[in-house]
């Protein structure tokens, strides 16, 4: 189990640093790339937790689609590809305070309740279990999500296209 913990620690450290970079860097494209690191790390965490299917979906959907979408957004809004001074709000102390307070509240609650909870050792789930569950118990939300994606697609096209 030590190996897993070490792996977790390294990955977590990388993810946190990358996440900080996402919100601190002055280069828009770099931010998107650091976001890829974070999202990849999340996928790794999913694998560590035995959720293979979610991990793979994470890589496909997020890194494959969302980040590309965001990069398109960066291009279309003609952000400079180099460093840009005008990405941040002038006042960043208040956001930091709010985030820190939020973190304090969350950490207190989480540690207080789950201090010693161990995760089960081997609990790898395969894609079939997930799909069975989706098509059995969650068929209604699944269909709803398909409608949602269609509506979002149509709406986004209407809103984003040039007249």
């Amino acid at each position, binding site marked *: 189990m030590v190996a897993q913990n070490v792996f977790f620690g390294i990955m977590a450290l990388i993810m946190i640093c990358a996440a900080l970079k996402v919100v601190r860097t002055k280069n828009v494209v770099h931010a998107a790339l650091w976001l890829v690191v974070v999202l990849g790390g999340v996928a790794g965490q999913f694998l560590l937790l035995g959720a293979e299917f979610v991990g793979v979906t994470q890589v496909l959907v997020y890194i494959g689609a969302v980040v590309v979408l965001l990069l398109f957004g960066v291009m279309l809004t003609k952000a400079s590809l180099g460093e840009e001074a005008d990405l941040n709000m002038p006042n960043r102390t208040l956001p930091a305070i709010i985030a820190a307070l939020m973190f304090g509240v969350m950490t207190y609650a989480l540690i207080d309740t789950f201090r010693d909870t161990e995760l089960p050792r081997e609990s790898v789930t395969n894609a079939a279990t997930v799909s069975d569950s989706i098509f059995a118990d969650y068929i*209604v939300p699944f269909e709803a*999500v398909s409608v949602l994606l269609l509506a979002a697609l149509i709406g986004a096209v*209407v809103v984003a296209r040039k007249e």
Partner: protein
Amino acid sequence: MIDAFSSAFGLLASSGAFERPPIDWHAVAPELCLLGGGALLTLIDVIWLEKGRSITSALAGIVMLIPLIPILTLAIDSEDRSMFKGAFVVDKYSLIIKALFLLSGYLVVLLSTNYIAEGEYWENEYYGMLISSVLGMVLMASARDLITIFVALELLSIPAYLLAAWRKKDHKSNEAGLKYYLMGVFASAIMLYGMSLIFGVSGSTILEEINESIASGGANTPVITLGITFVIIGFGFKVSAFPFHTWAPDTYEGAPTPVTAFLAVASKAAGFVALMNLVVIGFIGQEDVFQPLIWILAALSMTAGNVMALRQTNIVRLMAYSGIAQAGFMLAPLAVAGEGPAIADKAVSAVVTYLVIYAAMNIGAFGIILAVSRKTKSADLESYNGLFRTSPSLAIVMTVFLASLAGIPPLGGWYAKFSVFTSLTSASTNWGYGLAVVAAINAVIAFGYYGKIAMRMWVEDPHETHVGEVKVPVSLLTALVLTAGTTIAFGVAPGIVTHFTDVSLIAFGG
């Protein structure tokens, strides 16, 4: 057709261990009707192109009304149906809520007809968005697990974000959409985090099981508190409760007015439905957490909404602030819902009653705003000066809506407020009485700004540029007649509305 589906599923099932749980097609018929109608609408646009334009809005109206047929048959059947381990429930409560959403949707279509047709606003897609959003709401009424609630919420929200930005060339509309979108996403992120915690503590996404798990554990760990707080705050945004209301005035002002009516009524109602499902079925053993939270939100919303409305000069913003105050009233019964099953039932029927009446009077008020702004091209309160002299009937109907919103008997709004007071005081707790007093004071403050509009209509001279009668198109007139009639009927004979809204969530939730 269904057989073919079944056999197809059967083939799939035979290939593995998968077993499809039985689906009660009757129970999901309203959703399917709406879905089919929406698809038909889209297809017509694809096939007929320009030729389909003329009937689009009429068709959208019909699509909103058709699901009422299965709802009626389900109501006559009067059997509580539950599917997917209790994740999807059709009972009297959900049926009345579904009917409310569909009728509100229909009224919004009526309000939109001329507005959208005259503005060349991508008519077909507009109604498609509206129908998807209503589909999400209808789904929300039956949703009894976290995943379905979340998906329904997003299904009703995402089209609404886009609708708010629908007037693409108008900076204000863009801004409205952006603010609504961003705040909505933040709120749903907070709510999701809360849901994940609740799922973690209870080990289930189904509300009944959550209730058994966290109420039977008896433990009140900080994580439960955090989870419940986050979830309620997430929906506090949706119902525009103070201090999560900030988007409302800006979005209401910028969005196309029919969309504003939709947001102010249907979308808000959906938030309340979700809150009721969550609080009354899921969190009922944890009243130590949700009661104080909702108490604070209710008291703050009422007071802040009212005082902020007092000096407002833009009628749409004024309605936004008044809506915040009304949301406070609707939240109030939930602040005592944890005092026992009977009280919870009372609270739920009070909120449902309020929602039904609020829908009628608020959509009506927006109808008038729409009618007046068609002529004056302005949402400034000044355009209401002397309305009684230029178009007396509009002024009278608007006065009815305003008086109803203010809670003057014998109009619907009065009974809505009354049922809130009843449920608050029936709890016989000091907190309940306290909130009742806050509500009473606020009911009076509200006279200030509703009266101000009425005074402008009846006493002031009309603005020179606004002389001449306001012309009301047929569809808008229909909406006004329907809403005004309902508002008056509900107030004169509240028995009509209580007959439907005397619902219980506990009966099913155990």
